[in-house]
């Protein structure tokens, strides 16, 4: 956003500041590959400073509170920063403490997450020496960041153990609060089939109540129990606590936001980008990227005092690693679920939607380069539009 805006705004009138409490930027999709020794830590972590455009000021400090009624950000160090426009992009993070026993005695011993750098690294060390048993790949509750990541984890685990010649020693079960593998019917059909093919069991409609550390099992509200030797869980995801402190969040600390304009529902000069909002789109990096193009236009309209464009359609585009050097690709929005077809060129591809292929896998790996070199710089991805294209898709 800073990149987009500093091209568009008059430098004599506007000053752009980025406030970030961390000094490093993480390529979060890389957390999926770290446990399987596909990526190294240095592929994932870079200094934020490298990515700050010229003319934009970076403030590395914590925020105490956003006083939205007075257009002021109160910093932890006591500074008060006044703003004309505020863009909130504080993301979502895991909250394992929301489930009884999840962060208990077995945390990072036999209970792991892979949604944090530390969790993913600890899991890598565990997998290097694990001798097999019952592996559960588990989702606590929706919504979560990158809803396909746990499925990819299950597929990559299957492939990982096959390569280590120990697949017969590992029983993989996918445990989900949903009724099937994914949130959208057609993709669920394709993914359920893949799970079956890879001999991964599925336990659906499981609403976890607690992790029993002593007996190593998870228990749901209906009393269902599933034992584990290794539990890889995606804990509850929540928005930043700053939203709670500032009275800006809902029950999960997400900021209520207009789903097509990305403006806060409560304050006209606050806009929300990415996972920090409550809009019913996927919490995925591609969504934030597509949003940024539309949000830039809307911020310029807001400055001119003109009506905002209700243009964001919930567009998401995700590669799904399916193991053994292959991947699926899905492309969808608020109204259209993922279907089969070709991408990005209708009828040509070269990538196939909702079908496993090596080309899609190459796309997924190339994405890391695109992320660091294109996306963070705010450059438009060639041939991929911010709103979803309907051509080349089989909606029948």
């Amino acid at each position, binding site marked *: 956003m800073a990149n987009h805006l500093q091209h568009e705004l008059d430098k004599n009138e506007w000053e752009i500041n980025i406030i970030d409490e961390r000094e490093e930027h993480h390529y979060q999709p890389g957390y999926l590959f770290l446990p399987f020794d596909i990526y190294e830590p240095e592929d994932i972590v870079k200094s934020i400073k490298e990515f700050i455009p010229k003319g934009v000021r970076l403030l590395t400090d914590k925020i105490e509170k956003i006083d939205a009624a007075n257009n002021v950000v109160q910093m932890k160090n006591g500074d008060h920063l006044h703003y004309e426009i505020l863009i909130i992009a504080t993301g979502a993070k895991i909250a394992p403490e929301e489930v009884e026993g999840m962060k208990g005695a077995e945390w990072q011993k036999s209970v792991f997450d892979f949604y944090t750098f530390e969790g993913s690294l600890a899991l890598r060390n565990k997998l290097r020496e694990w001798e097999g048993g019952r592996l559960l790949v588990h989702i606590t*509750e*929706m*919504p979560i960041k990158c*809803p396909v990541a746990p499925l990819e984890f299950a597929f990559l685990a299957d492939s990982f153990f096959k390569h280590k010649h120990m697949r017969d020693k590992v029983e993989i079960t996918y445990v989900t*609060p*949903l*009724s099937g593998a994914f*949130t959208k019917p057609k993709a669920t059909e394709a993914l359920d089939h893949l799970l079956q093919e890879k001999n991964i069991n599925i336990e659906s*409609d499981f*609403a976890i*109540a607690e992790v029993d550390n002593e007996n190593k099992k998870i228990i749901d*509200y*209906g009393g269902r129990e599933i034992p584990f030797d290794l539990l890889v869980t995606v804990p509850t995801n929540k928005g930043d606590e700053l939203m709670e402190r500032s009275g800006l969040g809902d*029950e*999960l600390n997400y900021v209520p936001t207009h789903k097509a304009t990305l403006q806060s529902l409560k304050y006209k000069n606050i806009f929300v980008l990415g996972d920090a909002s*409550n809009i*019913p*789109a*996927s*919490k995925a990096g591609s969504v934030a990227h597509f949003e940024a193009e539309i949000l830039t236009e809307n911020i310029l309209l807001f400055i001119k005092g003109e009506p905002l464009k209700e243009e964001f359609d919930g567009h998401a585009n995700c590669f799904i690693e399916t193991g053994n050097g292959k991947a699926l690709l899905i492309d969808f929005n608020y109204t259209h679920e993922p279907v089969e077809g070709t991408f990005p060129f209708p009828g040509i591809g070269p990538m196939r939607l909702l079908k496993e292929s090596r080309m899609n896998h190459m796309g997924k790996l190339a994405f890391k380069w695109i992320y660091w070199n294109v996306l963070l710089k705010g450059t438009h991805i060639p041939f991929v539009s911010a709103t979803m294209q309907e051509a080349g898709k089989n909606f029948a």
Partner: protein
Amino acid sequence: MEKIIAGKTIEVNEEGYLTNFPQWNKEIGEAISTEANISLTPRHWQVIDYIQGEFKKESPLSIRKIGKSGVVDIKEMYALFPNAPLKTATKIAGIPKPASCI
């Protein structure tokens, strides 16, 4: 599609959720709950009242939100509407299945 519930012709989707909330009444709620093998007690009705109220305010529903509402906790919610409480409760209440899963 249409279905006859409690002697009235009602608009529903393939999964049996009402698509036109104004057609709902308590008898229809009773009939849907019987199909789900639930006999409604005053506690059930308190929960149904609450979720219909949220629906009218266009406020999105989730199990977590109901658990924090002060009306009922999650454990009791599962006891009242076993297996998939939010799906079952919204069906009985005559409102769409919540799109809490993205």
